[in-house]
């Protein structure tokens, strides 16, 4: 099993050692190379869904729950998501260069055409979701490879709206 944190593409492989129901992080690789780690020990709090984390001599609680292939973690007052990946998988192939609808909604206005060059941050299209307008912006400069919807179309979450190439 490999892991990644949040949106980052870096892949981690941890080695946990089980000593009397306590897990200690023994090794960690980041994209295949060894990381230097400080001492982290994790035990389960039987009374609840909490974990007890010992790190650098301090003890903190963490809550963790799995949703699909994600572990949602509350630790040190912050919420983070750790993604699970089958070892050796190529990782997320979700629309490389494609801009997907972040929410189900309606396309209000398409401001670019196929073949057009756009600059970073340029508004590509405007959609309405939950009664508010959202602008879909170009994440980088590039050429519009395809425009898949027109104004008035309803789109589902995750639908590829526009494909952008270099």
């Amino acid at each position, binding site marked *: 099993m490999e892991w990644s944190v949040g949106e980052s593409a870096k892949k981690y492989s941890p080695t946990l050692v089980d000593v009397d129901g306590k897990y200690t*992080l023994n090794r960690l690789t980041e994209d295949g190379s060894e990381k230097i780690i*400080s001492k982290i020990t994790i035990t389960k709090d039987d009374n609840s869904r909490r974990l007890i984390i010992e790190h650098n001599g301090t003890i903190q609680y963490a*809550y963790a729950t799995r949703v699909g292939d994600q572990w*949602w973690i509350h630790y*040190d007052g912050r919420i983070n998501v750790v993604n699970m990946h089958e070892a050796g998988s190529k990782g997320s192939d979700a629309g490389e260069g494609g801009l997907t609808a*972040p929410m189900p909604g309606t396309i209000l206005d398409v401001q670019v055409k196929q073949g057009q060059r756009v600059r970073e941050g340029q508004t590509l299209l*405007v959609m309405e*979701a939950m*009664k508010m307008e959202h602008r879909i912006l170009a994440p980088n400069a590039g050429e519009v490879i395809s425009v898949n919807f027109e104004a008035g179309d309803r789109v589902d979450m995750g639908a590829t709206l526009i494909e952008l190439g270099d």
Partner: protein
Amino acid sequence: MIPDWMVGATHPFDSVLVANRGEIAVRVLRAASEAGLRGVAVYSDPDEGALHVEVADEAVHLPGETLGETYLNSEAIIQAAKDSGAQAIHPGYGFLSERADFARMVSAAGLVWIGPPAESIETMGDKISARRRMIDSGVPVIPGEELAISEDADHLGTLAAAAARVGYPLLIKASAGGGGKGMRAVHEPRMLRTEYEAAAREASAAFGDGTVYVERLLTGARHVEIQVLCDSYGNAIHLNERDCSLQRRHQKVLEEAPSPAVTPLIRAAMGETAVQAAQSVDYEGVGTVEFLLSSRGEFFFLEMNTRLQVEHPITELTTGIDLVQKQFEVAAGMKLTIQQDEVGLFGHAIEARIYAEDASKGFLPAIGKLAMWRPPSTPGVRFDSGFREGDEVTVDFDPMLAKLIVHAPSRKAALRRLDTALSDFVALGVTTNVGFLRQVAAEPAFTNGEVTTDYLDSTSLSTFSEPKPENAILVAIAAAASRFGLDRTAGSASVTDFDDHTGHTGDPFRTLKRSFP
């Protein structure tokens, strides 16, 4: 049975239907229960089994798929009141709360309307008529062009001429708008057309009315609003101010009372003006008069919200007055029992609106299942929500999940309490703005009390990016959680005596029919 405190009132009632959903329905139904009133909820299909249905004594299903068929369906809601024997209707906020025709229909059906008279709603609901009434009553208004622009053939020419007279930057507002919808800032003439069209689209989508008008955009001002309370005998008082300057695209993010910018002198002047504004429309019940407060201490009327406000709890905590209970009393025809000089101001309260949204992705609304949901529950923390653990956050409704409200003796202590409460809040499974709120509340501009309404929109969002724990720790936790099998046992924890809300076992404060969200 009429509760004892209402005996002798001119319009007594023993039950109330809450024509709303989510946290406000829960809030009002709980207040009804405390007041000895029978509470009736209404719900549409996606809300079957929602918290507001659970806390009600009775719930009536509203069939249909759209809001128009359900929560905005006046006829169905009045019928639900009749069928369930409810004698009064509380509209909450949003939905039908500011529909004068609904207020009339409720009264015509022989039910008690828990809200202001239809005429007050009408006058204040239309921004142009409200502005005229304020000018007539001597209430200061924002310099602007009183020009209604309808979506007809030559609207752009008319708009451009008015815009030139008002001057840039300006604000295009939909007359029927609210909650930031249908409102657009225009900083230069070439953006006028685009922003106007966006405002008109939003307004007609959300309110079915595309009429807009323009006024000067005051920069560097604060949003300060006064809570008013009026009975039906002409008595009116104010319950101090709330400062809602921390906004993103005109949507409030953090609200506090009292305002760090309001001196006792300004408070008295603003309060008096707000009461004057309310009395000019023969207001009854609780309402809010919103002002823009300039850095020089001048204030201008923005609008009046003729309903209970989302941020009402901070006023409740700092005055000790239960606003929903007061709404019940006024609606029953009882006289105000508090005089202006008896209204206190105790400590400092801050409300944080918890939204299902991703601050790192342009605040896009997020959806999903609240896989783990443990609100903070410590002294001085109030948590108003319509969600429980396991509930699904969908695109059907507003993305506000909850309101986390803290109260402390001083502003500094309230800020510390807010940070602690936000960091203790375990909300897993749906992306929320909790981390963003912590960052915003810790920024010197906010801690120093210097935030103006343009602060958030003019500050780079990277300012608020969250510090992250080391990836090594997060990966170790996830891997250990997997090895411990936390994903398999998650569902069975509730089988034990463990209380999901307080974190204690066998909680003595947990009683039947009470579910603390």
